[in-house]
């Protein structure tokens, strides 16, 4: 740590071979043990990286119309399999005449999200209202249809990345407010409210998501009056959202605990109501403390969306698995290619969220340090 600080303050040395050698000696070959570690690391890299690059890029088949293209003796990844099925991976079996609706929803989401993520962009409040209130309404209206001019598209036709995003976004939009409410409830001074919150949180945190989804898909129908039936996807959404909100509640509670009670008391003494005190004084500080935790919960939720494939909903991973059983594309390396593609998509989303949260954290901390 101290080394780093002193390095930062040092004026930059001009780039030179000598400096590179110094760096190498210091960071890689400072002792026999360190040298051994370096060699071992190089060996590990040599084991993993070249075969991966060979498979995914150099030996990979990039174009072709059918499985024959990928049947070569040393063929690597079979990317034509992905190109050929890209529609299914994006939106499942959504009717092709209605696909424009999916693209509009994707585009609107991007338009709403990008300025919201850039701190300098104007009209934050309007932007967030659009993203959190108007956008879900528009998106659901467009995707589900069933209104004049928009034929209904049953959710059993939804699939791929569309379902992954629908589940993840719904989970995020519901779990944050619900989690805050539950966290406040758990710290409430009213015993009944506290008890209900604790039982709710501990229950959802104590069981695996798979059993929650099983419950949603086979048990929930028995809880409802005869004739009322919920869509399978909707049932899963409810399960995922409740599950995520319990985790969110614990993260938010951690933030609330870090705020000294004096803050709340001072706000109340200043004449603010409970909600004003919480909303204007305590929560903004508490949430800032736990941004990494909140984003981690989002990332966890995003990864957990894959579990819906176990109850027969085709998210991105489920769709990849389903296309793998297509005999027209059955090649030995098809499965690896499909998983590589899915892994890449998930990784970009999750890693992106993590990086963004780190960036925001630094920004906010810089503010408080000043």
């Amino acid at each position, binding site marked *: 740590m101290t080394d780093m600080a002193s390095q930062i303050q040092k004026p930059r040395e001009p780039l030179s071979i000598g400096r590179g050698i110094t760096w190498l000696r210091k960071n890689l070959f400072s002792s026999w043990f360190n040298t051994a570690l370096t060699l071992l690391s190089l060996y590990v890299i040599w084991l993993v990286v070249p075969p991966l690059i060979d498979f995914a890029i150099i030996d990979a088949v990039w174009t072709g119309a059918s499985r024959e293209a990928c049947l070569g003796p040393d063929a690597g990844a079979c990317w034509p399999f992905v190109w050929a099925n890209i529609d299914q991976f994006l939106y499942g079996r959504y009717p092709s005449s209605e696909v424009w609706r999916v693209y509009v929803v994707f585009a609107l989401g991007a338009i709403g999200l990008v300025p919201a993520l850039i701190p300098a962009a104007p009209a934050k409040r309007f932007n967030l209202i659009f993203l959190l209130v108007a956008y879900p309404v528009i998106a*659901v209206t467009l995707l589900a249809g069933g209104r004049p001019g928009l034929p209904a598209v049953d959710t059993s036709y939804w699939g791929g990345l569309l379902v992954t995003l629908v589940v993840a976004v719904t989970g995020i939009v519901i779990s944050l407010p619900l989690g805050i409410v539950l966290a406040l409830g758990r710290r409430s001074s009213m015993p009944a409210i506290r008890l209900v919150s604790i039982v709710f949180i501990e229950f959802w945190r104590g069981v695996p998501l798979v059993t929650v989804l099983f419950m949603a898909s086979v048990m929930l129908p028995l809880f409802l009056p005869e*004739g009322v039936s919920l869509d399978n*996807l909707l049932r899963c959404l409810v399960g995922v959202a409740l599950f995520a909100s319990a985790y969110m509640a614990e993260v938010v509670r951690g933030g609330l605990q870090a705020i000294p009670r004096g803050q709340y008391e001072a706000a109340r003494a200043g004449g603010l109501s409970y909600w004003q005190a919480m909303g204007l004084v305590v929560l903004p500080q508490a949430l800032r403390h736990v941004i990494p935790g909140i984003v981690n919960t989002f990332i966890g939720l995003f990864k957990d969306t894959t579990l819906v494939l176990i109850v027969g909903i085709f998210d991105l991973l489920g769709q990849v698995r389903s296309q793998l*059983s297509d005999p027209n594309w059955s090649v030995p390396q098809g499965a690896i290619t499909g998983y590589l593609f899915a892994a890449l998509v998930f990784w970009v989303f999750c890693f992106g969220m993590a990086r963004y949260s780190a960036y925001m954290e630094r920004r906010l901390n810089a503010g408080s340090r000043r």
Partner: protein
Amino acid sequence: MENRFQALLMGLVLGAAIVYLFMPIAKAPGPAGNRLAAVDRATGEARPETAAGDTLARVRERGELVCGVNQGLPGFSNPDDKGRWSGIDVDYCRAIAAAIFDDPDRVKFRPLNAKDRFTALQSGEIDILSRNTTWTMSRDTQLGLDFAGVVYYDGQGFLVHKDSGIAHAADLDGATICTQTGTTTELNVADYFRSNGYKYKVLSYEKNDEALAAYDDHRCDAYTTDASGLAAVRLKMKDPSRHLILPEIISKEPLGPVVRQGDPQWADIARWTLFALINAEELGVTSGNVEEMKSSDSPRVRRLLGGEGAYGNAIGLSDDWVVRIIRHLGNYGEVFERNVGTNTKLGIERGLNALWNKGGIMYAPPIR
């Protein structure tokens, strides 16, 4: 102690908003359904007599039949790349739609996995389950369901790799078998190996595709399901000629449509639609000659096609209900040949599924 309860209130409002948002997705209950649910809750007893016709009324009101089918089993229910379904199970549902609406396309097919199928029917998500489901006593009596008849007489068999040298089920002693969770096959395998004193290992997968992939990769020595299903999945293999269906059939698998218990009229419609298909074949009524046959002299044909008596009316349909079915779908023999018969890729002989007077056991009670 300020308004902390508002927190929960907010949650409820939020929940309500979300429910509202998804209303078009959630299927709203029909008025009849609501009323009856109230009755049921109040008495907590079996549904009263007035319930008859409930499902039919709901289907009519909705304008389409919701039919639970297999997610993909060639010959029984399989979507093509445009999402159009075909197969015996699918045609059976189309027959009901034809009988009700005179339009075989007013069906919504809901693909279900083995595990969710009964729940979907129990909860009213689907009107009828036509998903190569084996009729067993426990399913008929303990799940609140009724089987309407047998669409296809099947039996469980094994698919093996040709190069394994296995030629008979007896060679499977010690083998590993792949199958799907939630089916009768898991139990039949256990019964078969146990009664023969063979050792075996069974791997049960949640999804049929996974079970099949595992077998294909030699994780298992054999894959087991109904013989008709074996013919279908063999086609899905990279190289069908490298797989062999063993001659032994180890169980009885009468596959048939299922309805909820407690709606006798709907059960009658399901049952007699099937019988109408079979009777039509027996009486020689086909999609080609149904219009001429209407003026047939045979009283049996006339009763079938609504020329005599009011049989359709008795089950809440129009009297020309069978004409509608046969016009759109053809008789049982046509449905069979079109989907799984010897001229299709599956190439299945009629066998047990031939009419009773042609060496099979397909037998329908008469319409009179």
